């Protein structure tokens, strides 16, 4: 069986959306920051243990400071949103709860996943403590740089989307 699902990467600029995207699609990483303008779209076919072939179409958006400013059309027809924040920059997760609430309200059927990225730059224990203190929820902490948890995350999401 072949399925196609649209997944959109959201979150402030510079948090590593493009890096996660590149890591997942091409298994590559660059320290160089190159701004994403608008959206770039790539597809990866995931072979699931269940035999299902999932074609994941990932939209890597330019990011936003305020979720409302995300171009509405980019979100059309989505199956999942991945909200990425930067573990080293508090300003990228300070509004996370409000943003998630907004997304849930306007896209009730879409799966939402939250990723804290750049795990390689912080102490996992310390940051978990801090996120807990600040009541910041997350599904996964990743590093696009070291490839930590990246493919696991996308594969689990793929499983989830085929259910």
């Amino acid at each position: 069986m072949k399925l196609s699902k649209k997944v959109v990467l959201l979150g402030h600029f510079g948090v590593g959306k493009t890096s996660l995207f590149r890591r997942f699609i091409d298994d590559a990483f660059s320290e160089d920051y190159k701004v994403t303008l608008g959206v770039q779209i790539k597809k990866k076919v995931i072979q699931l243990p269940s035999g299902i072939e999932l074609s994941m179409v990932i939209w890597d958006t330019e990011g936003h400071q305020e979720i409302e400013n995300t171009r509405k059309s980019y979100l059309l027809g989505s199956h999942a949103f991945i909200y990425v924040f930067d573990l080293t920059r508090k300003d990228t997760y300070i509004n996370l709860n409000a943003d998630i609430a907004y997304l849930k309200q306007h896209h009730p059927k879409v799966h939402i996943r939250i990723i804290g990225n750049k795990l390689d730059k912080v102490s996992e224990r310390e940051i978990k403590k801090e996120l807990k203190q600040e009541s910041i929820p997350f599904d996964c902490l990743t590093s696009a740089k070291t490839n930590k948890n990246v493919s696991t995350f996308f594969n689990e999401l793929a499983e989830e989307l085929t259910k």
Partner: protein
Amino acid sequence: MTGLEGKLHFNQKIQFITLSFDGVIIDTDNNLFSWPKNTSIYDAHPFFEIIKGFLENDAITQNEYSFPCIHIEEDNLERICDVSIKIDLKEIVVLLFDYTQKYNELNQIAQQKNESILKSRELQLKNEYLLEKENFKNNFIANINHEIRTPLTGIIGFTEVLEKTKLSFEQEELVRIIKRESNHLGSLIEDMVDISKIEAGQLNIINERFLFLDIVKGFKETYNRIAEEKGIDFEIIVDPNIQEYIIGDKTRVHQILNNVLNNAFKFTDEGKITFSITKNYQRTNKVSINFKITDTGIGILNKDLDEIFKRFTRVEHAKNRPGTGLGLAIVKNLVDTLHGEIKLISEPDKGSTFSINLPFQFDILKTSIPKIKKKKKYKLPSTKKKFKILLVDDEEVNQYLVMKILINHGSFYVDVAISGEQAINYIEKRFYDLVLMDLKLGVMDGYKATHIIRNHYGDKQIADVPIIGFTAKATEIEREKCLKSGMDDFISKPFEQEDLLQKIAKNIQKKTTV
């Protein structure tokens, strides 16, 4: 076909595509991308899969969607397009507007803006990280200080006790080394603790009123000796206009100057070190004092001048000298803490001058407090590095004691004769700067030996050698007897170390000035 076709056909920046409901390209002008007719648009680029969703979800009604700024690639070509998708009952029309150039211009602006934000955050993080590490380290060192010092105090203390027990010469030498090394370790630890305290902001400034010349006094003794050992000159010049009593952190001032002097002596093998202290200015109850330490040492390269005050800096040509490189970093930090300033002027192979300005206060009303009775001062002439002393004594304990005092002082070579005859024998062969003569000797006593020395030699170097007699009784008769036999002075046993040194210095001095 849409009515748009005719108008847009010739615009190179726009491509139109008509699709069937299963995504097959029915018609296109290939202005931007060369996707062939009768192939699936879904294979052209994953962006177009969005259309599947539109068709799946809703019953097909007339609808128009527009997507700004979509990156669309074909082979190695990428265009950034605004895309409009129009679905009506008969067909699907896709319009691609190529705005690559416009978006690339925008891209540069966004790139600069975002980059600078990320960069500044990066720097901020780095600083925070370094600061945290630095603070942790400084606190650690400042706190562990006690833990290290306690056992070290034990080592030094017991070494001193051990030193006073009966030891063979070899053991004595070994104990001396242990003591020297432990003291060295101790001062290294002090340095480290100090610098970390300063940097952790734990250093308290304690201002007190003190006799200004006290600062200089200690240096005079310590460094005169080192200067003599190294064979260099050392001069201290103090401006007499400086208040007798001033207020400041005496300990820290001492530490600053001691470190700089130490440094000067370490790097100077010949020539002279001058330590001059002058008053810069005084206002109401404030006085600024300049301390200048000039040496004729190896100097410092211009390029290293800034480095020299950093921690653990050993500039290249200082590498073979002992030390941690902490000294000058402490100096700089302490001077800053005391709100002073330090300048260094240096030339390789010519020497260096450290100039330090420090602020002090003074009491306008009180001038001086009654003086504590000063110990008698002694000063050896600076003509020689070391003075040769002949000790004439047949008592082993006395020999040992006198030798120890003189050798420890560092300015003397000591020969020992155990009889009057032997003493004369030695004096004929070697010139001495002074003779310490015990009076109660075997065959030829001290008076007799002195008499011979004074009267039987034409050589003034022999005949006029200063002689100090050791007597057991401090009586006037004894004194008369000594002076009559031709001695210059006498000292009674038991004597105090300082008295012996003072008498020796006085008589050598007298001799050289005659």
